[in-house]
């Protein structure tokens, strides 16, 4: 029974190269050059999927990227599987496996098809109205909706393909290589512009390249022959780069565009290994020429969605480009002349045309005369009122249109067919133009939106600019380009053109039927199953804005972004509400124009390159010594060093105890370091820190708090005076970049008169912190030349030291509350110095500890961590750190804010210590703190910010912020947990060595 649906006229198909592929598990054959859609049609397969809501059988509708129905999943259950692929775009290759996406269990028997019969109860907004109540049921509904809705399946394994990004700068970018794009490329490149021409298809020449009609001639040659010569010519131009299979996804401001170059999707899988699959091109063009063409409009009539109904231009393209016949009994339905181009090309190939139904009453053109001459019946002034056939169209019924086009009159006629081509005229593809910020205007004569105001140096040419006929394109394009590129003389100014196209059109957005609208199904958005009826319902329910109607009816919200039906939706709204289309405006076309894969967007930034991380110069030692790591900003920091199968808690308890009992060593290299020099350095520090810096002696260190102008603590750290006009500031690990940025901001914009220079030296110096009662003994051996006696090297002071010939800065400062030294050393020597400290420290059981132990030790001492114990709402007063706020200084950043009415409130959240009733119970960080559990609603007083079990104090300790906490010392509070309440007492946040005996030991 196999029909022969191939006509051997296409030079774009290589019939010597047979390709086998699978569709829904069955093997078929096509030829090299076929798309999946053309190969399926050649095998007489129209039914390829089910619609989204009603699960109606759907067929291939178009031959391009606007396809709403033929959406397939490729290579199911493999790592290369991909959903939402348009069968009209994917080129077939040996071994291709595709399956229908929106059907369950099979495309021929679909359970969801029952929705079609239930459709009277599935109106617009149905999902919103029905599945919302009761809210708790949503999860159950969602399961069934998703199962039957056919959203495609994402791959479960990681993507085996390679993707990359590339920047391109050019003088002129031309989007679209149809006839106008080719002309533009030749003109631009020949006049010395560095030109890039891109097209989404694998071949150049758009729809003209397969146009073999005697009715369209250029310089007395067939338009396709003429164009082919032009293409061969431009391929030789040196400063023209041509990229096919490249679709522009986004057109941003300042002529910045993103395009996806498809490199391997047309190759058999085994030929793709180690090749780049997609390349994301980031194009910055001085000038952009948009030549994206136009999309044919469908007609909106009852049951206009059956398999076998295609755009008229698609039937033409399948016949001429792919050599495939879509049907053996064709009917064409039109409101303009373009159906007659299809009719002529089918007729010339000997393909049967049953009839042409034309909305127009009085028509006359060369094309129509030729059809009539060949005895093809034209029903003038008629419309289709219904179609028949479930899985493939079998028959249409037609009636005469009334004069105003709002009703049908007379008697019904039936015409048998197996394929129906429809055309409602053309819509310029202005998507990219509007993405770029361009403003459209509405042209009433043929009801189209065309480019009007250009936001950047760009122009639209050809049918995306509203010039649809060959003579219009060929006469307008050179004129526009001449002006746009500022040229004196160009090619193409004296072309001889023959074109038989008549522009008359009878535009009826929603064609009438003999049935009332409630009983019909005129689809506007095929992919989302939105009908004209739904739009009217939305308007009845009070929706007016096009954006609201779109969301309520889901019109234009599929993966095709409603490329086919958006104009009709607008038209129907305008007719129903009596408003002008031009005033309604269009919905926003958002990037990407066609969907992009995640791989394309991510490029090479995958795996370890997904987010860069920074390692300290001692990193390798930590790895070798089995450290677990913690991410702190971009840094990898040693978290703890488990020994002999210890868990985190055990390791941290051991490390903490060792650091206080004998000696511990920490890699603190990630601390931010800023070198500050200049004659006004001291004055600068006075202004950026809350305390006073004028009297800090050379060789001394001081702790400082930095506020934002709103008075809230922003960063902290120790700054050391190295010389008269030279300081080294440390910041928190996470704050390093923002602190430098903020200091630069004040220096450059508020205090340009200060002589101060800031340099980030975070990466240049490593920091090794050695703490514990034996740290002094260890350091004395590491630096035998230095005098470590307390009177010469007291707490908060600094000395220059040397290890062999390596210069070091040694600071006696402490973040643990223990006797402690920090060695700052040029990064490339850091690992050697670290190893030396470990070697010498061995006899003192020196214990490397990580960030977790560091946090525990500082909590014992009540030292805050900015960002953990503070958020952006804590002043130094809230932190009970009044001592660090200078009363004498006239001004510093944030000072004025410390006595705003809000910051002086007594009941602000303030930092306190918390001790649990049961000393073994460790609180959860983030837990809420309340006083009265019976009060309703319960008043939240604050929360726990830091919490640990202290091995040195042998009890649980915690810091937290509590409203009015400062005056609640000794008071009992409650931490309510899911299944218990924990009683706590408010305590001093300094749990250990309040007298600083250890620091000064």
């Amino acid at each position, binding site marked *: 029974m196999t029909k022969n649906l191939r006509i051997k006229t296409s030079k774009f198909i290589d019939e010597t190269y047979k390709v086998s592929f699978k569709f829904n598990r069955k093997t078929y054959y096509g030829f090299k050059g076929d798309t999946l859609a053309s190969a399926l049609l050649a095998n007489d397969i129209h039914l390829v999927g089910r619609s989204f809501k009603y699960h109606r059988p759907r067929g291939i509708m178009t031959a391009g990227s606007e396809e709403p129905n033929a959406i397939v999943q490729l290579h199911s259950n493999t790592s290369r599987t991909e959903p939402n692929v348009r069968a009209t775009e994917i080129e077939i290759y040996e071994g291709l496996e595709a399956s229908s996406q929106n059907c369950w269990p099979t495309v021929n028997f679909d359970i969801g098809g029952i929705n079609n019969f239930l459709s009277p109860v599935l109106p617009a907004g149905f999902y919103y109205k029905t599945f919302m109540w009761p809210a708790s049921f949503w999860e159950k509904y969602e399961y069934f909706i998703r199962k039957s809705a056919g959203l495609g399946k994402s791959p479960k394994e990681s993507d085996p393909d390679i993707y990359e990004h590339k920047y391109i700068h050019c003088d002129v970018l031309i989007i679209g290589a149809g006839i106008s794009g080719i002309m533009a490329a030749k003109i631009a490149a020949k006049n010395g512009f560095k030109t890039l021409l891109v097209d989404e298809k694998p071949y150049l020449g758009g729809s003209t390249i397969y146009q073999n009609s005697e009715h369209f001639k250029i310089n007395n040659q067939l338009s396709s022959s003429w164009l082919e010569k032009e293409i061969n010519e431009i391929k030789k131009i040196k400063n023209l780069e041509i990229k096919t299979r490249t679709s522009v996804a986004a057109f941003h*401001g300042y002529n910045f565009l993103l395009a996806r170059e498809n490199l391997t999707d047309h190759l058999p899988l085994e030929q793709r290994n180690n090749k780049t699959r997609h390349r994301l091109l980031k194009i910055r063009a001085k000038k952009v020429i948009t030549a994206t063409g136009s999309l044919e409009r469908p007609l909106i009539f009852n049951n206009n969605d059956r398999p076998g109904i295609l755009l008229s231009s698609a039937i033409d393209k399948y016949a001429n480009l792919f050599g495939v016949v879509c049907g053996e009994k064709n009917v064409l339905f039109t409101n303009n002349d373009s159906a007659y181009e299809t009719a002529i090309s089918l007729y010339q190939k000997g393909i049967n045309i049953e009839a042409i139904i034309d909305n127009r009453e009085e028509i006359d053109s060369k094309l129509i005369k030729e059809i009539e001459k060949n005895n093809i019946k034209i029903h003038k002034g008629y419309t289709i009122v219904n179609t028949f056939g479930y899985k493939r169209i079998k028959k249409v019924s037609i009636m005469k249109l009334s004069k105003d086009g709002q009703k049908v009159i007379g008697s019904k006629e039936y015409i048998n067919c197996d394929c129906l081509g429809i055309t409602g005229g053309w819509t310029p593809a202005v998507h990219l133009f509007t993405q770029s910020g361009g403003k459209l205007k509405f042209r009433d004569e043929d009801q189209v939106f065309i480019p009007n105001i250009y936001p950047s140096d760009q122009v639209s040419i050809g049918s995306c600019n509203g010039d649809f006929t060959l003579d219009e394109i060929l006469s307008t394009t050179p004129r526009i380009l001449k002006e746009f590129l500022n040229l004196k003389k160009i090619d193409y100014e004296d072309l001889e053109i023959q074109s038989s196209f008549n522009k008359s059109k009878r535009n009826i957005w929603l064609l009438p039927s003999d049935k009332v609208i409630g009983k019909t199904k005129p689809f506007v958005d095929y992919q989302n199953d939105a009908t004209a009826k739904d739009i009217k319902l939305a308007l009845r329910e009070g929706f007016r804005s096009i954006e609201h109607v779109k969301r309520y009816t889901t019109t234009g919200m599929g993966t095709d972004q409603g490329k086919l039906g958006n104009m009709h939706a607008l038209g129907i709204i305008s007719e129903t509400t009596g408003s002008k289309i031009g005033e309604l405006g269009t919905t926003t076309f958002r990037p990407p124009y066609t969907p992009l894969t995640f791989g394309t967007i991510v490029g090479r930034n995958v795996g370890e390159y997904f987010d860069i991380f920074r390692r300290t110069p001692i990193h390798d030692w930590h790895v070798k010594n089995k450290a677990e790591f913690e991410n702190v900003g971009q840094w990898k920091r040693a978290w703890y060093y488990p020994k002999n199968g210890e868990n985190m808690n055990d390791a941290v308890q051991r490390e903490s105890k060792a650091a206080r009992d004998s000696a511990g060593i920490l890699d603190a290299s990630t601390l931010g370091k800023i070198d500050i020099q200049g004659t006004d350095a001291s004055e600068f520090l006075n202004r950026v820190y809350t305390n006073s810096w004028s009297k800090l002696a050379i060789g001394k260190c001081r702790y400082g708090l930095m506020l934002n102008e709103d008075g809230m603590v922003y960063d902290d750290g120790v700054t050391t005076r190295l010389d008269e006009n030279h300081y080294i500031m440390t910041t928190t690990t996470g704050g390093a970049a923002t602190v430098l940025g903020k200091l630069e901001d004040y220096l450059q*914009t508020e205090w340009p008169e200060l002589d101060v220079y800031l340099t980030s030296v975070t990466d240049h110096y490593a920091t090794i912190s050695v703490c514990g009662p034996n740290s002094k003994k260890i350091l004395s051996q590491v630096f035998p030349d230095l005098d470590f006696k307390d009177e010469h090297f007291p707490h908060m002071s600094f000395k220059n030291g040397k290890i062999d010939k390596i210069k070091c800065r040694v600071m006696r400062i402490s973040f643990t509350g223990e006797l402690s030294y920090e060695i700052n050393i040029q990064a490339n020597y850091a690992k050697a110095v670290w190893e030396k400290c470990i070697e010498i420290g061995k006899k003192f059981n020196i214990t490397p500890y990580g960030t977790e132990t560091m946090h525990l030790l500082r909590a014992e001492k009540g030292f805050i961590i900015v960002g953990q114990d503070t958020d952006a709402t804590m002043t130094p007063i809230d932190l009970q750190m009044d001592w660090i706020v200078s009363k004498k200084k006239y001004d510093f950043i944030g000072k004025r804010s410390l006595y705003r009415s809000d910051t002086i409130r007594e009941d602000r959240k303030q930092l306190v210590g918390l001790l649990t009733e049961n000393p073994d119970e460790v609180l959860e960080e983030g837990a809420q703190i309340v006083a009265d559990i019976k009060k309703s609603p319960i008043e939240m007083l604050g929360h726990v910010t830091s919490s640990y079990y202290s091995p040195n104090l042998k009890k649980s300790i915690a810091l937290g912020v509590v409203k009015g906490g400062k005056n609640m010392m000794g008071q009992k509070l409650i931490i309510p947990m899911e299944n218990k309440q924990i009683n706590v007492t408010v305590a001093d946040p300094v749990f250990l060595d309040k007298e600083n005996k250890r620091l000064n030991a």
Partner: protein
Amino acid sequence: MFIINCPYCGEREQSEFKAGGEAHIVRPKQPTELSDDQWAEYLFMRKNIKGIQFERWVHTHGCRKWFNVIRDTSNDMIKAVYKMGEKPPTK
């Protein structure tokens, strides 16, 4: 993504820069003399104009210099750039 003409480096991609809010708000010389309301005016109140806006930008991944930009927020067109401390161009 727009292009900014850094007064020190020339035209660069927007991704090299960071925006720093409204321009020409001078930090009061004597904050302690100000009432809560006056201080709040300086601290919190910023314009958010649809149209021509005066802004501060910094060339973060370049020269690290702060400068001023006049930008039309409705279409991102930059009308002028000028250095800190300079008066905005009048035209």
